[in-house]
């Protein structure tokens, strides 16, 4: 590899930009919604908790007074395993450094299990413009698009985030937020295939390899519609970033239904598929890129991740300031801090997802730490052009499509 100042080739960048019709996926549904036990179970068992019934969106919530100057705090809601963490001190090193540097007390909450459930949880308060107790939330493209469209996010003051200029060129303009007025990328990643390389030394090349008889009952796929069906559609020669039809979506769904009914697929999971890889219940899965790197680091080098030959999906998670947050300036300071390449490199080394900050790779290459240097060559953190050419971004679903497709998908999942 030669010059890697700009990790993306112009054509790959163009591909991605064209595909930023902004669809994407929730990742990481820890325990498939176990966090929602209280509400769901209570609702189901005795109905003592009522859902906030939603009326129309006639009045738009307006932003509140910014109290950042007097209240030196910022509250950040993020996904699990998504920020560098020091096991021995039980702290987030980069976050602590931020607090020392700026005097802003940062609290970090792994509150988001997946896009859908977190959105459902905060939507009622957002609609009324209330403070949800978080000043930064992280949503995947399609959900960020919804939140911005519903005017639930505050406009960012670019002057306070000079480091935002370090954002990868291809992510600077996305269809749902032209010019990044409301959002800033946290991390990106792929969905592809992962397998246990001790048990399956020959590996997997395509989604169809998952349906081999010898893998019966040992396959798991993601509960994220856009990842699992995106991959199956690509295998069927349908581009999930293009204008596919409901029939083409249905064809992919039929494959999933058939493999579930025959018992080929053991279970459909969110983030917890990694536990089944560890226990051996699953040998081959549809997986998220960064998880496999983390898994190999923590449980012995046993698994391999690859983007299928027919292509994989790509997504980004984005930081947003919710409408009721009274600490927007503090949130902006935090965003600015994480767009410093030095800081971004530390985060990337831990989370192993695609780093959206230019210059982080150089920082890692120049690091005296051998491990850091090796990670700078990890294609899951700094994508190769070949990989980027193979991945697609699931297109935005229009109007009723969103509800219809997810309803059909849930039906196949037995819900």
């Amino acid at each position, binding site marked *: 590899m030669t010059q890697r100042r700009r990790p993306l080739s112009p054509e790959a960048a163009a591909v991605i930009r064209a595909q930023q019709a902004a669809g994407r996926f929730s990742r990481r549904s820890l*325990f*498939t*919604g*176990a966090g*929602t*036990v209280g*509400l*769901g*179970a209570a*609702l*189901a*068992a*005795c*109905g*003592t*908790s*009522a*859902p906030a*019934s*939603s*009326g*129309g*969106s006639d009045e738009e919530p307006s932003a509140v007074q910014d109290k950042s100057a007097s209240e030196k705090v910022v509250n950040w809601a993020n996904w699990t395993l998504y920020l560098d963490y020091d096991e021995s001190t039980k702290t987030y090193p980069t976050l602590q450094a931020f607090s020392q540097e700026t005097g802003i007390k940062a609290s970090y909450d792994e509150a988001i299990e997946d896009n*859908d*459930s977190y*959105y*459902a949880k905060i*939507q009622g308060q957002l609609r009324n413009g209330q403070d949800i107790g978080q000043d930064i939330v992280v949503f995947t493209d399609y959900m960020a698009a*919804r939140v911005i*469209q*519903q005017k639930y996010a505050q406009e960012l003051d670019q002057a306070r985030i000079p480091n935002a200029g370090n954002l990868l060129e291809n992510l600077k303009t996305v269809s749902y937020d032209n010019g990044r007025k409301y959002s800033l990328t946290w991390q990106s990643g792929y969905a592809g295939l992962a397998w246990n390389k001790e048990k399956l030394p020959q590996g997997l090349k395509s989604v169809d390899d998952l349906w081999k008889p010898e893998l*019966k*009952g040992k396959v798991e796929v993601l509960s994220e519609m856009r990842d699992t069906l995106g991959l199956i559609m690509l295998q069927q020669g349908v581009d999930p970033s293009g204008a596919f039809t409901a029939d083409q979506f249905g064809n992919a769904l039929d494959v999933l239904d058939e493999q*579930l*009914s025959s018992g080929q*697929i*053991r*279970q*459909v999971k969110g983030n917890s598929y990694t*536990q*089944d890889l560890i*226990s*051996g*219940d699953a040998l081959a899965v549809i997986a998220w890129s960064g998880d496999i790197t983390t898994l190999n680091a923590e449980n012995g080098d046993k698994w391999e991740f690859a983007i299928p030959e027919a292509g994989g999906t790509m997504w980004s998670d984005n930081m947003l300031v919710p409408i009721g947050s009274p600490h927007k300036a503090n949130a902006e300071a935090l965003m600015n801090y994480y767009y410093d390449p030095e800081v971004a490199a530390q985060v990337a080394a831990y989370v192993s997802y695609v780093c959206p900050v230019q210059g982080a790779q150089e920082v890692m290459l120049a690091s005296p730490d051998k491990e850091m240097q090796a990670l700078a060559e990890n294609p899951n953190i700094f994508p190769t052009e070949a990989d980027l050419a193979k991945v697609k971004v699931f297109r935005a679903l*229009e*109007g*009723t499509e*969103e*509800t219809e497709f*997810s*309803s059909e998908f*849930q039906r*196949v*999942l*037995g*819900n």
Partner: protein
Amino acid sequence: MAALTPASVEPDELPRASGRQLRTVLLLLIPGLLWLGVFFVVPIFTLAGTSTQTPSGSGLPGEFVQTFHLANYWDAISAYRGHFARSFFYSILATLLCLAIGYPLAYLIAFRAGRLRNLLLVLVVAPFFTSFVLRTLAWRQILADDGWVVSALKWLHLIPSDLAVTASPIAVVAGITYNFLPFMVLPLYSSLERIDPRLIEAGGDLYGTSFTVLRKVTFPLSMPGVVAGTLLTFIPASGDYVNAALLGNTRTTMIGNVVESRFFRVVDYPTAAALSFILMAIILVLVILYVRRAGTEELV
């Protein structure tokens, strides 16, 4: 059954309350009524409202308008009949298993445990010290295909070599049984423990075999515990979705899972609310039928 109850146990008639006592009673009721009003009555009307809403037409997920569209109920029933049937099948099965396991256990603790009684009671409650999600997750590790339990059973040829224990209906029912067992054991214990031992001795004196005494004396006297235990197990079990989500697969989903997915994944609040109401109605009917049949005046 009433005939078996010794006359001395019969509760005295409540004395008629004077005006002042009535005021005290009302004052004492206020916190409870407020609680019920705020957290039960108001939500249940909101939920009823939600269950008859229809999409607002904006095309955005999660936006509905109140239209009193009662057809939501019919749509929900026809789409999820199978899930209701499965939920009640699993929860009734688990309740029976709980009773079968819990009764001997409660009997042992009440009559045969001697000095170990308190220790055994603590052990029954001990699992509550850990989060029940964690305990359920632990079962997934214990019963994993390559885990030692399943490996050992396979090595002994007790189960076929290609059988997976987790991600199956067996695991879901077992999970529910395990998680709700204490709710069965504790009421059973408290009603067995209150039985006057002289009645059991009398059964023996009248030449009843120990089995006959159990069947004709002990079990009928423990009916309040049986009814309380089965209700405490059955009602939450039919709405449970954690066990199905963690131990089952996509072909073992219960109605709770559907409510969860409708609510959080599809953002279809009306269907989720309608399903909750239908579930409540079915449980209510089943419970009324059951309590009438089991005839438990002593319960109250």
